[in-house]
Each structure stands twice: as C-alpha cells, then as structure tokens.
C-alpha cells in the first residue's frame, strides 16, 4: 500500500470487515440456494426415485460426519474466544483442532464417494443410467452439492491455516482478530450448509 495508508486507517474498522463478511456469506447462501432449488423441483417431480435412491446412503456415516463438523465449529468458537482474551496458545490449539476435524470430514467424504464410485454409481455411469430418472438426479445432486460443499470445507481449512500462521507470528492477537472472526463466520456457514445437506440426502427417504 502506498498512497492509501491514511485511507486504510479510516476504512479498516473491525466492524467494516465483519459487515463485508456477512454480505459475502449472503452471496454464498444464494449460490447454494440455486442448487437447493433444483433439489426441490426434482424431488417434487420424482418423489419415488428420490425415496429409493436415498436408501443407498449410510445414515451412520452421515451422522458421524455431522458430529465431526459440529465439533469443529465448537473448536473454532473456542479459538476465537481464546484469542480475544489473549490466550494465544489455546487459540492456536483450537484452530489446529478445527483444521484437523475438517480434514477428517473430507477424508470420510472421500471414502464415501470412493465406495459409491467403486460400485459404478457416479454421474453418467452405465450403472446409474439404467436406473430410474429420480435416482439419476438424486445422485447427480448428491455429488454436485456435497462436492461444492467439500470445496468450501477445503477453502475454509486454507483460510484457517492462514489465520493460524498469522496468529503464530503475532500478527493476529487480542486487539486484532477480525480475520479469525471472519474465518470463523465462514466455517460456521459451511457447517450450516451441511446441516441442510445432511437431512436432504441421508435422513429424508
């Protein structure tokens, strides 16, 4: 930054950063809502096919992953609280745990995908195309929505990793934690999206 050092001082309130993040999350919500719209339309049109296909999902794995993600959100909240109070090491621990649980979530998801793909269940596969329209679309939505969600989890882990490094170097601390808070908001958002995906694909049959 050259000429705008003064402008930066004027503009970068912690509150401004937070408002920006909320607006961004609003756009994320609308991004997912496009996919949810397709889910609603196709579910209404092919209720029976969706019912049959949902039986294929393992509720146990889904539940386990939900618990993993919710726990990670708790860790993130604790990490933010710790940084505010100046307990830097506790915050680092919390951030580390969040990232670890995020990776566990992705690993479980990958195993789940691998299992399905191993059985020939993937978009445009001969096995899937023999099934009924509703099942084709159910699995299409499953891969697309959980896939986009997984990309968000990965991005979230990246952002938290950046916050982790900055915290370790002392660039984030009790007086300046907007970045960590925003990372937390993003992480909770990803969590909330999963809270919707979980029933849509695993519980409602």
């Amino acid at each position, binding site marked *: 930054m050259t000429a*705008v050092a003064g402008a930066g001082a004027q*503009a970068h309130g912690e509150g401004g950063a937070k408002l920006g993040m909320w607006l961004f999350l609003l756009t*994320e919500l609308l991004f997912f809502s*496009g*996919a949810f719209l397709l889910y609603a339309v196709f579910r209404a049109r092919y209720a029976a096919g969706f019912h049959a296909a949902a039986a294929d999902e393992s509720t146990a794995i889904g539940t386990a992953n939900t618990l993993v993600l919710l726990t990670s959100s708790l860790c993130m909240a604790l990490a933010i609280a710790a940084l505010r109070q100046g307990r830097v090491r506790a915050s680092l621990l919390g951030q580390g745990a969040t990232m670890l649980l995020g990776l566990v979530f992705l690993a479980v998801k990958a195993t789940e995908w691998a299992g399905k793909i191993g059985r020939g269940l*993937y978009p445009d596969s001969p096995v899937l195309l023999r099934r009924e329209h509703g099942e084709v679309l159910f699995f299409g939505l499953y891969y697309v929505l959980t896939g986009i969600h997984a990309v968000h989890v990965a991005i979230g882990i990246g952002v938290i990793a950046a916050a982790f490094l900055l915290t370790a170097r002392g660039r984030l601390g009790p007086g300046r934690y907007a970045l960590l808070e925003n990372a937390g908001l993003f992480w909770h958002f990803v969590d909330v999206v999963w809270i919707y995906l979980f029933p849509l694909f695993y519980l409602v049959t």
Partner: protein
Amino acid sequence: MTDPLPTATAQPPRPRGFLAAWLLSTDHKRIGIMYLAALTLVLAAGAALGVLMRLSAVAPGALLNARHYNQTFTLHGVLMIFLFVIPGIPVSFGNFLLPLLIGARDVAFPRLNRLSWWLYLTGAAVILSSLFLKGGPLDTGWTFYAPYSVQTRTQVSFAVVGVFILGFSSILTGLNFVTTIHRLRAPGMGWLRMPLFPWTLYATGWVQLLATPVLAVTLVFIVLERFFGVGFFDPAKGGDPILFEHLFWIYSHPAVYIMVLPAMGVVSEIVPTFARRTVYGYRAVAFSAVCIAAVGYLVWGHHMFTSGMSDTSRTLFSLLTFLVAVPSGVKIFNWVATLHGGSIRTDAPMLFALTFIFLFSIGGLTGLIIGSLAPNLHVHATYFIVGHFHYVMFGGAGMAFLAALHYWFPKITGRLYDERAARAGWVLLFVGFNLLYFTMFVLGLQGMPRRYFDYPARYFPGHMTATVGSWILALGLAVVLGNLLRALRRGAPAPADPWGGTTLEWTTSSPPPPENFEEIPVVTRGPYAYGEGARR
C-alpha cells in the same frame, strides 16, 4: 497517459516501475482509470464485431459463413454484456467517484478492490483464451442456453469459467460499495444528503450481491454437465432445460438493472448541474432506485413467455414487468420536471444525458410492448427484441457511459476536451443509432427473426438501412473517443469545477490528490443546492 497523480503524501512512495505502480495500486482512482481504459477497449472491440455482423447481414455468406456468424454474435454479446455493460459504470466511474462523492478517502476495502480488478483481467483473459483453444469460439449466444451449450463442441467451458470469474469480481465490487456507503460517508452526510449517483450504486451493489451468485451456480452446472454429464438439464436423464432458463434469468434479468441503475445515477448528476436546479423530488428519485432494484428480481419470467409456463405465471410475470415501469417513470418525469424552468446549458455531457432520457424512454416503452403477453408472442425472438435491447443497453447504459465520460473527464484527467468535436460526434452517434436500431423495430414487426444468418429478399431494405446506420454510429463513436484521446495529451488544464457542479467531487482539485481531500469535508446540506445564492 502521463501520471495524473501528484505525489504529495507525507510518506515517500517506494520507487516502482510505471506498470507496477498502476497494477499494484489500491487507490480507487487509479483502479477506476484502469477499468475505464479496459472498458473503452472492450467497447471498441465489441462495436467492431457489431459492424462486422451488420456487414454480413447485407451480404449473407460473402464475409462470414453461418458458423462464423454465430460465433461473431456470441462474442459480441459476451464482450459487451459481461465485460462492458455489467461492470461498466460502477467499476469505472463508481470506483473513481463514489469515495469523492460521499467525502471518503477510499473505498472500505481498497485491497479487495484491487483484487476485483485483477479478477476482471483474469476473467477477460480466460474468455479471450477460449477463442484460441480447441473447438474455437463458442456459438451459443451470450445466454448459454442448455441443452445446446452442453452439446456444442465449441469452447464453452472456458468462456463460462471466465464469466464465473467476472461474477466474482462483480460481487466483490458490490460488497465493497455497499460497505463503503454504509460506513464511510463524510460527517453530516445522512442518507438523504447523499448524491443520487451513490444511491444508484448502493441499489446496484445489492443487486450484484443478490443476483450474481445464482448465475455463478448456473455456470458451474454447465461445466459439470459438459464434463460429467450430470443430467440436470438433459431430458434424457430426467433433467429439464427450462430450469436452466429459470436459473439463468433469475440472474440475468436483475443484471439489466446492474447495467441501467448506475446509468440513471449518472443522468441524475448531470441534469441538475446543467439545468442549474436542485433535482425535482430528490427523495422519489433516490427511493425509486431501490424500488427498481427490488421489483427487478421478480420479473425474470417475462423472458420465458414462449418457453412453456402456466398462464397464471405468465400473467403474473407480465403484471410485475409493468410494475417496474413505475419507478423508472418516476425517474424520467423527475428529470423532465427538473429541466422545467431550469436554465439549461447543452454542453456535451448534457447532450448525452438528454439522449439517454430520449432513447431509454423508447427502450422502456417498447419494453412494455414486449412485457404484454399477446404482442410478446408476435415479436418473440425477432429483431424487435434486438432493437428494444439496444435502446435500453446502448441508448441507456452506453449513452450514460459516454455522458459520464464527458462530464467527469476534466475531473479524472485534469484536462478539457474540444467541445465542438464532442458535439459533432454526438450528432453522428444520434443519427446512426436511430437509423440502426429503430429500423430493427420495423424489421422485427415485419417478422425478421433475430440471430438468423440469412433471410428472404423482402427484408433486404431494412438490413441495408440498419447497416448504413451502423457505419454512421461507428464513425460517431470514433469521433467521440478520438476527441477524448486527443484531449488526454493536448487538452487545456481543467479547473476544479468546470461545470459549476455542487457535489463534493468538484470541491477538490482536478485530478484529485491521492487521498481525495486536504481535509475530510463536513456536509451541512443536501446535494444540488442551486439558487438562493447557494452557488459556490
């Protein structure tokens, strides 16, 4: 362009190369100028493609074959829509002027602003790279309708990814502007003391935030369909192409207001300055911007009257479409009321602003014709639509862009341009524009379908007239832009307030210093305070 920014900061700037000093700058003014340069290039390229299409239309097959014709109109649309009118006025004039107009030193997130400029460049590069990759330029039309966009062998994926990146850029700009307006208004500038251009940028920012993500996810679906055959839009797998149209227009109709609202903002700045009167019904003009943005979400279905919808939804969408005309009419009538009894000066910015009002009114009124069900069925997908579209986009957003270019040119560059050349260019533009696009209304009513490569001989006179119009229009554009380019180097130095404007940007020097104001101004009254000796 020579460096227009005097370095007068306390902190000595790090020595940098010319290119780095610009590309790495977080100064909203520099970013605005870079966008402006890029947009002008795109405008010139898009216009050249348009002239090429018109040439092909008078002699089908002589210049372009059918495939190349499809690719030309697609590229014309993609460049003009996604790289020119949608980013258009907000990223160029919005970036340069928003902080100046509300008395701030910069936007709320300067580095995010630089990121959106880089994303714009990246998106443009990705779209242009699709021209040279396997399959060649896409031929889907700018709407990327499924299922054709999923099946064609042309390079749809790259173009679509490019548009996705541009969407990101658009979202970040909207987010930045909304936050800036909420938090960085100068002391004393309440919402109802804010000039009207920021009001429209605010409404536009919300539309960018709320509409663009839906386009993003739709584009992701196209790419997934192309690579993995997911089947959402493929009837053979149970999918539904109509769903694509819904998702596409849920974004792309509000996008029309991303293009037109800031244009209305520009006109709302120029009209009071050159009529020397306070805008008539300031509140109504400000709130109508928000109303247009709000109602604009609910009308996407009017693009699909012939696609297969229930009669109830068609009637509803038709009614809602008529509703948007109300706040648009409020603006038009208020501008006219402002002119009434004003002491009007017709300098170049005002000429372009008045042209906006005239051409946009024609565009809006023909919009009502298309928004009614019965005539819609008659003129659907004919040149009538193309005419309407260009009256709104080029006659609206394009003319406002040129108006803004002339109005703020002295402020941005610190130079004055030649008024006579600007007027000569304007005359050519006006004549060429109406010859080209009004003829399209006639052609459309006669039944000439749009996007067709060839046609029966009875449409030839219309096509010939339109093509001659396109030459005059292109000449006018060349005169206008050439005049400004010349003024960049040879223009006389501009005073701080060449037009006698009353908004904050005229209180600082031309061009403004790095942090805009020597001291952040304190606002004690509303904008456009003319009369009662209030003139500065």
